[in-house]
């Protein structure tokens, strides 16, 4: 039987160390909504999302109340819209109408974000894919809750450099289209290499074609819990350090697994995966940077940071894998800058640069995330950064992503406020040397060799 110490430990994790379930994300396939008529397509999409998603928010609240664990976000991910809307949408303007439908469905179901305004173009772009991509700036400027992502490379296909070039321009256009709002549109746009089909985290969530009709995915969190556990083993060797992370990650993931199973049962929708990511928030004590510093770094960004992050990421997986029957999504530590107070502080004290963040993305779950850069950064430079991240993902057979915010009208040293979970960020310096001739070549980078790995 459970004892008072164990009960107190769990409740302390929840109340003082900010243990929560970061998101319950309902994946919905829209493949059966296809229609040649745009109005019919919009109707089908709206009806299906609102039918399957109508109880998502209330069920989430119920579980939260009964188990006493906060569930921060309830969200919906849909089939990449480029696949669904191909017959009905002939222009970027048509796609923007679909985005409006998604936004309306998100508002009606009460979810705070809906992901899947996406295209998968890792090898090539169809005219439909390209029309969707070109509609992204207008779609993100005219909607509130829609999130967009583009997958433009994979280990199996190589990198679509035409798409890399285009996305540099689209990120800039999105920043311009939302400049009244600190270029916030870019916070809802992710560029991927090796994007997973079952990621529950925004802005990159979409419901892949390998998925069932509807599925419940859960993203756990808990940087604060790991940090607190590590406070108890200061100065101990790496074996103790790793064991502590592993054991704590197990407990955190069990809470996520329980919530996922409950949500699945109550909604009558199959359980998909638990995503083991450590996702920070801007609130104090909920920081991945805080964990790395607790390990013994003076500041995130100092030599040793990449090694510390690598061991954290690996131990979280080792602990979490056994705690859940199905693990998927991104599963690792997130290192967004604006959403993590420790990262923000490190940038402000000059310890953390984009180049060091890039090195860190080689060993963590995602990539260059929520980084504010000067508003006058050229599109080709943004493309160059995207190409670098995609190359890391392609060669290392992992997911990498880029979510940069060129803040129009702001320069290095200024700060930009996004609000809520998105936090705030200091505008960071970008290497000023150009790469336009490299980006303008066009074509594809071939898939890498799968042997002779060094």
């Amino acid at each position, binding site marked *: 039987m*459970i004892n*008072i110490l*164990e*009960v*107190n*430990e769990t409740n302390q994790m929840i109340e003082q160390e900010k243990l929560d379930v970061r998101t319950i994300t309902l994946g919905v396939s829209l493949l059966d909504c296809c229609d040649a008529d745009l109005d019919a397509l919009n109707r089908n999409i709206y009806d299906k999302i609102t039918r399957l998603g109508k109880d998502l928010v209330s069920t989430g609240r119920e579980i939260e*109340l009964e*188990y*006493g664990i906060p569930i921060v976000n309830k969200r919906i991910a849909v089939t990449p819209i480029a696949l669904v809307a191909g017959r009905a949408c002939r222009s970027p303007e048509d796609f923007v109408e679909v985005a409006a439908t998604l936004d309306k469905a998100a508002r009606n179901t009460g979810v705070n974000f809906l992901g899947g305004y996406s295209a998968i173009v890792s090898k090539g772009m169809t005219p439909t894919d390209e029309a969707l991509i070109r509609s992204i700036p207008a779609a993100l400027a005219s909607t509130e809750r829609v999130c967009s992502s583009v997958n433009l490379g994979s280990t199996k296909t190589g990198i679509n450099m035409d798409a890399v070039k285009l996305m540099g321009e689209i990120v800039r256009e999105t920043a311009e289209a939302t400049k009244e709002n600190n270029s916030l549109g870019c916070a809802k746009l992710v560029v991927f290499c090796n994007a997973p089909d079952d990621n529950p985290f925004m802005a990159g969530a979409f419901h892949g074609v390998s998925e069932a009709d509807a599925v419940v995915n859960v993203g756990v969190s808990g940087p604060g819990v790991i940090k607190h556990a590590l406070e108890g083993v200061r100065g101990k060797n790496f074996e103790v350090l790793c064991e502590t992370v592993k054991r704590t990650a197990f407990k955190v993931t069990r*809470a996520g697994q329980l919530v996922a199973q409950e949500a699945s049962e109550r909604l009558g929708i199959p359980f998909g995966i638990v995503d083991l990511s450590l996702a920070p928030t801007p609130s104090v004590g909920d920081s991945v940077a805080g964990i790395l510093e607790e390990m013994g770094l003076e500041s995130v960004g100092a030599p040793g940071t990449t090694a510390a992050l690598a061991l954290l990421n690996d131990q979280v997986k080792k602990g979490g894998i056994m705690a859940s029957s199905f693990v998927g999504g991104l599963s690792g530590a997130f290192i967004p800058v604006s959403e993590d107070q420790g990262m923000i502080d490190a940038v402000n004290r000059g310890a953390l640069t984009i180049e060091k963040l890039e090195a860190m993305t080689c060993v963590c779950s995602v990539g260059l995330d929520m980084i504010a850069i000067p508003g006058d950064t050229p599109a080709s430079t943004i493309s160059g950064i995207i190409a670098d991240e995609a190359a890391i993902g392609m060669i290392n057979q992992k997911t990498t992503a880029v979510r940069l915010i060129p803040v129009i009208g702001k320069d290095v040293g200024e700060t930009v406020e996004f609000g809520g979970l998105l936090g705030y960020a200091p505008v960071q310096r970008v290497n000023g040397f150009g790469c336009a001739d490299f980006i303008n070549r066009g074509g594809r980078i071939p898939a890498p060799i799968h042997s002779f790995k060094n």
Partner: protein
Amino acid sequence: MPEEINTIQGQESMSKTIITVVGKDTVGIIAKVCTYLAENQVNVEDISQTIVQGYFNMMMIVDTGGSTKPYAGMVIELDELGEEIGVRIRCQREDIFTKMHRI
């Protein structure tokens, strides 16, 4: 037969509820909580309690199977009762603890 087995297993695995009360020790905390539970046909199966540095710390294992009150309503009312007495009362399904601490 298989149906019967399922029913028995179902009853055995009926989830219990853990009520925790934490706060400054005053007269009548247990009485007030137990009165509320009795009024709502909630059966108390086990109580453990300690006082750490003047702070009252109690855990009850209860069975809400006989209660007609919706679960969420009970969580909220116990929280309100806690505010009245000046302590923190949490009411949670046992699974959140067993899943975390037992393999």
